Structures are given as C-alpha cells and as structure tokens.
C-alpha cells in the first residue's frame, strides 16, 4: 500500500565512469577508476532544465532518499521521505530530485568493500582516502552524465551540509540555492575526537584484520561500538532523558552485574547491532576521515575567500540542541557569506532532538525549505 505523498516505488540506478586509463584523480593525489555511483531520481526535469535539486546525504545515508525500494515494504524506506515527495518540502511535483550514494560508501557506490579490478578482491584499505571534495566531484560527473548543467538547489544535513558548502565553493556558477543544515565549514576538535574513538573501536576489533575481513567474520563489535558513540552525539541530553530517563530494561531492580540494566544501554546496543547489518566498517573509517579533513577555510585560504565566486542564495539551518555541530558553527558560515554580500537566511530551530533533528523534525523545516525553494525558483 503506497502512502499518499510518497514518490512510490523507486529503482536505484547506477552510473559507472572514470574507466581506466581515464581514472579520476582524487584530492589525496591517487587515481581511482572505474567509479560507480548508485543514484535515484524523483520528479521530472522541466523544459527549462532549471528545477534540479541535488540531495546529498550524511554519514550513514544512501541513494534511497524517498519512497519505497520494493512493493513489500509497509512504510516508505527512503531516509528523508518526510521531506521529499509530492506536496512535501521538496515537492516532487515541481522539482527534479537527484540523490547519489557517496564515493567511499557501501550502498552501491564504489568504496572499500567494492572489488578492486586489479586484484579482483575487495579494496579494503587499498582504497584511496576520499574527501568531501571527491564526493562532490563524482556527483558533478553524474550530473554531467544526466545532462544537468545547473542546479536549482543543493541540500543536505550534517556531512550532507559539508557537501553543499563544497558544491557552492567548487562549482559556484552551477548552484542557485544552497541549504546546508546542521553542519559546519570545518570539523571541530571535539567532532574529530568522537570520530577517532569510533575508528579506534573498529580497528581494535580483532576481526577487523587490518581491513581485510571481507568473506570472513566482520568486525561486528567494533563497528557497533562506533555507531553507539556516534549515536550519542546525534542526540541531546534532554531527548535521552525524555526517551529513557533512568528506566530499567526488563527488570525492576538493579542486577548488580554487567548485563544490561538501563533502557538507554539496550537502545544503544540495538542501534549498534542494527547498523552493523547495513553498513561496512571500512566505509565508516573512510567516511569519518573525509569529514575530519573537511576545512573549507584551509582549502581556499580563508572561509571568506572560499565563497568569493559563489552566487547562490543560502538557507542555513541549525538546531538549538545540536552539540555536535552547534549553532555558532552555522553563524561562522553566515558571517563569511555576508562578507561576500551573499543573500542568506539563517535560522536556529528550537528542538530537543539534537543533531539528528533534520531527519526527525519535519514541520518547521519543511515549511522553511518549501517557501525558500518556491521564492528562489521564481526569482531566477
């Protein structure tokens, strides 16, 4: 049963490019090819070809941003189905939406779990380190392939927001509207620290085997712990309190042992375990590293300089309870945009959901994004 306001059943498509000898040069200096990107599209490209919205995903996202991936699903499985669909914030009746899995990922795009054509075995750690810039460059190649030379908008939250910022700096003439959500122009020491703990959890799992675990036992414990740590940073003190407080799991008294006592422990373990089923540990290493390296100011000399060629209008959104990418980091972006005389809306949404609010808090940001796109599309 397809819900109203859904884009329906969507088939993921694949685009392969950079075939040897025309491999793509990555920011680290190494070459990679062939590269495959998994992607989905929703809505129709209009005649003027001015209604394309590129949706870019966060760490654990994929190409399946909206709708159902098969008729068997009871609910839409797209990771941003609350935002994308007919009549929604990103209205697929008006806009042509493209979303691709990032390079380095494990959801159909080339990453460390893909087969290395030279060895005919999974890359593992032989996969080159990719950056946010590399993600954006591969998305550009995909758009070239689709015949799209201008974007109405690039939108994404968290690491998606970093890609949005990279887009307007690397391909400034292509982007008319930019919506970076709950993001930063450079990862803070605190965020790098959390990423490093996650990576150490994975790499200290004996099953990780230097990244060469494919076809053997996967580093279940390590990846699960990495996800647990990550998940804590996506929530807020208040939302955890509201959800779990100090409630016990399936017992009425403390166990005085090291088996699960509290609901919050049980929840985190569940989150960790379910993540392991759908995500590759090496991809986690690569993607978290890509975020750590992200620093637009360093890349362009200064953050002000980074936006020197940018023409896009911005809608910058932060969340009051996000302590991973706090509002101040969005204000730094605004300050640099303003220096360059760029139009920008900035709003901090009051919410208890923490960093993950962009995936959960539909009402407020749907209205904001819908109106911003509407006026931005009309103005052009």
């Amino acid at each position, binding site marked *: 049963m397809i819900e109203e306001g859904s884009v329906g059943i969507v088939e993921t498509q694949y685009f392969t490019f950079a075939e040897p000898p025309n491999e793509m040069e990555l920011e680290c200096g190494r070459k990679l090819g062939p590269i495959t990107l998994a992607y989905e599209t929703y809505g129709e490209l209009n005649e003027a070809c001015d209604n394309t919205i590129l949706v870019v995903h966060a760490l654990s996202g994929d190409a399946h941003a909206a709708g159902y991936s098969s008729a068997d699903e009871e609910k839409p499985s797209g990771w941003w189905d609350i935002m994308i669909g007919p009549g929604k914030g990103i209205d697929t009746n008006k806009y042509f939406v493209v979303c691709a899995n990032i390079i380095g990922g494990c959801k159909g795009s080339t990453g460390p779990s893909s087969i290395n054509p030279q060895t005919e075995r999974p890359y593992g750690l032989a996969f080159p380190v990719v950056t946010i810039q590399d993600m954006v460059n591969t998305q550009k190649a995909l758009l070239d392939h689709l015949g799209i030379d201008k974007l109405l908008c690039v939108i994404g939250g968290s690491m998606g927001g970093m890609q949005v910022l990279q887009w307007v700096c690397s391909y400034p003439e292509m982007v008319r509207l930019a919506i970076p959500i709950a993001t930063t122009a450079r990862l803070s020491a605190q965020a790098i620290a959390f990423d490093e703990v996650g990576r150490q959890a994975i790499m200290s799992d004996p099953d990780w085997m230097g990244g060469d675990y494919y076809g053997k036992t996967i580093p279940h414990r390590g990846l699960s712990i990495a996800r647990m740590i990550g998940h804590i940073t996506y929530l807020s003190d208040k939302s955890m309190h509201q959800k779990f407080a100090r409630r016990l799991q399936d017992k009425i008294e403390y166990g005085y042992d090291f088996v699960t006592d509290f609901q919050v422990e049980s929840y985190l373990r569940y989150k960790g375990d379910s993540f392991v089923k759908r995500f590759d540990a090496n991809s986690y290493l690569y993607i978290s590293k890509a975020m750590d390296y992200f620093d637009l100011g360093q890349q362009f000399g200064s953050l002000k300089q980074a936006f020197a060629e940018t023409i896009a*209008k911005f*809608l910058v959104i932060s969340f009051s309870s996000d302590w991973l990418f706090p509002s101040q980091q969005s*204000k*730094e972006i*605004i*300050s640099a945009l*303003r*220096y360059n*005389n760029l*139009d*920008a*809306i*900035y*709003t*901090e*949404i*009051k919410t208890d959901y923490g960093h993950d609010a962009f995936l959960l808090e539909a009402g*407020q940001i749907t*209205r*904001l994004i819908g*109106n*911003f796109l509407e*006026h*931005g599309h*009309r*103005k052009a």
Partner: protein
Amino acid sequence: MTEEIKLEENGTVLHLAPEHKIIIDLIEDGSRVMDLGCGEGDLLKALKALKHVRAEGIELSEECIQVCVEKGLFNVHHGNLDEGLADYADGSVDYVILTNTIQVLHRPLFLIKEMARVGKKCIISFPNFGYLPIRFQLGIMGRMPKSPRLPYEWYDTPNIHLATLSDFRDFCRAADLRILKEIPLRTGDEGKCSIVRFLPNLMADAAIFVVEASGVRG
C-alpha cells in the same frame, strides 16, 4: 497600531508601524540597510520596493523568520540583539534601524555602540516617557503609565529601559554618538505620525533619532 500600505508592483499589502514611513523617507535609494528586530519583514519589504535597498534583518523569533521567508526575503538572520553584532564587520551597512525596541534590550548602551560600529548611520525610534499624558498618569494620578505605545501592565511588560527625549540625548553622549537628526513624533488615531515642533519632550509620544559614531567625521 499599524498602517497598511499597498505596493504598486504586485499589490502586496504591508503593515508598517506609524514611524516607518518617516524612516523610509530618511533612507537614500540603493542603500544597504539592516533592520534589527525586523519582525515579519514588512519594513524591509517596503524599503526594497520603494528605496531599492539591499535589505537584511536580524530577528529573535523563529516564527517571524518563517514569515520573512514566506514573503520572499532572502536576508534574515536569527539572532538575539542582546548578544550584539559580533559577526558583522565595521561600517558594513549604510543604515542600521532599531524601531521601538531599545526599551526591551538588556544592554541598550552595548547594542547602540554595536550599531554605530556596524552602520554608517543609525536610526532609532522609541516611545517618549516624558510625553505629557505619561507624566500625568505618574505625577498626578500616581499610577504607572499606560498608553497606546506603552500598553502593558507594570508587572507584565517587556519594557525595562524607558527614556525621555532628554534622557536619550544624554545616552547618545554617553555612547559617543553624534545626533544628526531628531524627529519628535505625535501618533494620531489612525496610526499616522506628525512631527512635533513645540515642546517636544512634553508633546511627542515617540521620537526618531538619526545618529552616527562621533569619530566618523573626525
């Protein structure tokens, strides 16, 4: 107390505060303008349409920002004026406007210095606490004053820093500001403002001051 104006280009109806029309007249065509506490963005919309300004606003209310975006404004920032304008560079706008807001700020002196740093000129409007009916209520009736401009009960008011015209002149001196223009106003029943020439600190219910940092012209 708002006045409706209709924009000719597309028939949009805007709701302006009584002194907004006078403020609009003060601003040169094509200026860069920042409205502090821009609310739902009506003044900015009017300034864009009538004076072709590059308009930006700062607003505390999330809901007001939503409405500004709905109106097609592309330059509104969510912020608390009591935190100042640290993210804004010196002299980066021609006019900083603060209408009917200074009396609710926790640190008016701090903000006005910030305004004079960021703006080449500042336009400030505020209710005059020296207005005769106000003095009468306090001085003769022995009651905390209320008026159309100050409609709140004493125990439930956002107004914590009320001033008279004379007080405001002292305040400008304390903040190292030069007063370029002083426009005492009398607000009529339909929300239209007229300029008061006789005994302004007694006869005006509000005023607009145009000021700049003293150092500017040396």
